[in-house]
């Protein structure tokens, strides 16, 4: 069997959660195969992460280069293509970095690629069977992938619980194999998100509004409900895209991570990117006119209704208490 590698994302000397999830995914593909963490970066922060991962993975391949100080996917791709064996099984987190790196990496490794894997069912010879979701999470699909010539697999963050078991591997310095890392895309800087007038990350009750609100003029009814409940208003991505609410109110992986006690998902379908921004196991109420909306899989209480009719009635009832 080909060697299995997990790419470890890290910042400020600390590995991201995906580092402990990918090893679990790797064991689903090849339960007995050793799994090597491959870690790119520069300097003391990189060494710190490598030592941390050596306790968990069977081996760590360290690639240290000043050009890798920030994880520019174009540079990382070159380093991986130059370093890893051609038929490797490479696991990446399906986040904004994995989406940037995975597809092109698979082409340059002349291997296969599967994005956003939510479950690994196992292998049969050189064929891997996995589960994906399509159509905004409204249908699941079994997918097979030929991994005999190597593969790149993007695993959805959070689908596997971190493995706490320890393997105790060695750090191997592969920096010398990285080769030419010149690319045609240069990282400049990270521009931090602007703070808004409400900090939804501190809210105990959130009334969160999605596409079901249909029109900017209707957003008012959400504020009315929030006022009656003593809640703050947050939203899903389409509301920010339409510029009906400011970015600082967006819940999700590309927005804010919130930890309320109660989360009212109003007209929100519940994409995994949105759900990724809800932490702390709140009591989730979902109101949606589409009974198949994925939000009903994760909500505690669901109501199949049009929010444009339901919200004003709920507001009135709460105001009358």
């Amino acid at each position, binding site marked *: 069997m080909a060697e299995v590698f997990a790419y470890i994302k890290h910042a400020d000397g600390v590995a991201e959660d995906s580092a402990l999830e990918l090893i679990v995914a790797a064991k689903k593909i090849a339960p007995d195969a050793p799994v090597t963490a491959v870690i790119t970066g520069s300097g003391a922060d990189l060494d710190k992460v490598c030592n941390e991962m050596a306790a968990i993975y069977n081996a760590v391949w360290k690639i240290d280069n000043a050009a890798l100080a920030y994880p520019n996917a174009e540079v990382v791709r070159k380093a991986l293509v130059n370093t890893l064996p051609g038929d490797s099984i490479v696991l990446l987190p399906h986040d904004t970095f994995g989406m940037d790196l995975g597809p092109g*990496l698979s*082409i340059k490794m002349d291997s296969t690629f599967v994005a956003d894997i939510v479950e690994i069912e196992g292998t049969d010879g050189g064929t891997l069977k996995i589960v994906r979701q399509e*159509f905004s999470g409204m249908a699941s699909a079994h997918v097979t992938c030929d991994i005999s010539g190597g593969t790149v697999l993007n695993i959805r963050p959070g689908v596997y619980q971190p493995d706490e078991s320890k393997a105790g591997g060695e750090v191997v310095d592969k920096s010398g194999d990285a080769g030419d890392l010149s690319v045609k*895309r240069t990282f400049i800087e990270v521009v931090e998100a602007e703070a808004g007038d409400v900090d939804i990350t501190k809210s105990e009750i959130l009334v969160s509004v999605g*596409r079901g609100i249909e029109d900017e003029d209707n957003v008012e009814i959400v504020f009315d409900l929030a006022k009656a409940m003593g*809640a703050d208003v947050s939203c899903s991505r389409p509301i920010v895209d339409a510029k009906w609410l400011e970015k600082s109110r967006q819940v999700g992986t590309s927005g804010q991570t919130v930890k309320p006690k109660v989360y009212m998902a109003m007209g929100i379908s519940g994409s995994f990117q949105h759900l990724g921004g809800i932490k702390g196991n709140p009591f989730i109420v979902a109101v949606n006119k589409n009974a*198949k909306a994925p939000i009903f899989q994760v909500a505690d209480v669901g109501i199949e209704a049009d929010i444009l009719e339901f919200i004003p009635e709920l507001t009135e009832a709460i105001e009358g208490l």
Partner: protein
Amino acid sequence: MEILVCVKRVPDTSENEIEINSDGNDIERDDLVYSVNEWDNYAVEEAIQIVDKVGGSVTVVTVGDDESEEVLRREMAMGANNGLLLTDDAFEGSDGKGIATILKAAVEKGNYDLIMTGAQADEGAAQVGGMLAALMDYPYASLVNLIEPGDGKLKVGREIEGGNQEMNEIELPCVLSIQTGINEPRYVGIRGIRKVASVDIPELGAGDLGMDAGAVGADAAKVKRLDYFVPDMGEGAEMLEGSTEEIIEKLIEYLKAKGGLK
């Protein structure tokens, strides 16, 4: 600047309930409302705005069947100058790499400075742009939410976690995948569609593209969908039922118990 935007005709998930057919090999496609992949509209709008600023032209391309022509026309009604339909029985059943391979052949027949895709489409894989870039040996940036044209290069912002933005400089020619929210796609009325109804849209097959038909399509695909299924949802939500009054009464009880009312 010569810009190529890759678009796709997809079932509109905001307009449809997606049901799986009785064989489990496809979704129920009868009565589905199709539209242009939402992300692609942002890419086309961005392309039009860039050309308005610096000159050039916008070509929209899709891999599909005759029905896909309607999405090309819609994007031309927005303001794209040319349409290109890549269609061949040999293309059917292509995986992501197959689609990227077909698009590469089309790119090589043109002279494009910038190629854009939507950040993702109905399959949610977000893969074709990155594959096309690697096949072309062009630089790539995904999830782009800002573009500032420069001389032989672009300044691009990428949407990353936490609402932050990663700024990059990227050399032309390049491939970018476009995230929603980068602009406000213009409205297309029925009059706009009518205007472009009779514009000729060239159709190119494997032979016209000078490509090996065996390199794409179902037989070449190494990633294959076996079936669709409804996942075991576990417990799922407790669905409140009854009259609206009864539902609201139950909901308020829950909210009181869980600290949802202040």
